[in-house]
């Protein structure tokens, strides 16, 4: 039986290796046909900002990889509303992530679910495995 896996992303990209490593683990985990969700809370919401350009810091810009999550059947990306607001951000500042629904003639659907802290607590409560980065 598939287990429910939740990967919690709490750190901004580039300053530490956590964000990139979490993404690698998610993509590996997705290959094992589990029910995978991602949550972005705290500074983790910065991982999804648009217009990242790392040319001048000599690091790989891994932000385009998030848009491939849908192809790996990772279709549930939770963003904590309070974390965005505390940072002066809105969903418009973040990438628009989508997935294609095989059961509905490959209709394109939003992956991002904007949730309150209380709603996210309920989602976490449903998980079998939680991995925090």
């Amino acid at each position, binding site marked *: 039986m598939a287990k429910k896996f939740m990967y919690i992303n709490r*750190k*901004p*990209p*580039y*300053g*530490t290796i956590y964000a990139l490593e979490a993404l690698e683990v998610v993509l590996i985990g997705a290959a094992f046909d589990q029910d995978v969700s991602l949550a972005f809370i*705290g*500074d983790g919401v*910065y991982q999804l*900002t*648009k*217009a*990242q*350009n*790392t*040319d*001048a*810091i000599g*690091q790989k*810009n891994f*932000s385009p990889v998030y848009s491939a999550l849908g192809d790996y059947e990772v279709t549930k990306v939770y963003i904590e509303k309070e974390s965005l607001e*505390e*940072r*002066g*951000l809105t969903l418009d*500042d973040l990438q628009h992530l989508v997935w294609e629904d095989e059961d509905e003639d490959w209709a394109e659907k939003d992956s991002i679910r904007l949730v309150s802290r209380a709603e996210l607590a309920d989602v976490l409560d449903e998980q079998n495995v939680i991995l925090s980065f």
Partner: protein
Amino acid sequence: MTMLHTVNESPFETKTFESCVGLAKKGSTILLIEDGVYAATTGNSAADMIKNASDINFCVLGPDAQARGIEGKLAEGIKVVDYEGFVDLVVEHDSVQAWL
């Protein structure tokens, strides 16, 4: 004496930025680098700290802001410098305090 302070941590993860602003004297410069650059964006609590510290110069390292996709969201009055500008700041000030 003028001092250049560098802060490399997000103001939402640690109190480093707040401590730095509290201890920086008039006429000194705070250069935000790495994850520290998030303090320079508009519409958050750190932005108020910057606004209230009008006698301190705030700078952001451009390459770090660009990498994080926030260059278009920097608060008013924040000067963007490149790596050469970083070196110039070090030369212009009497001492450097790196808030690690």
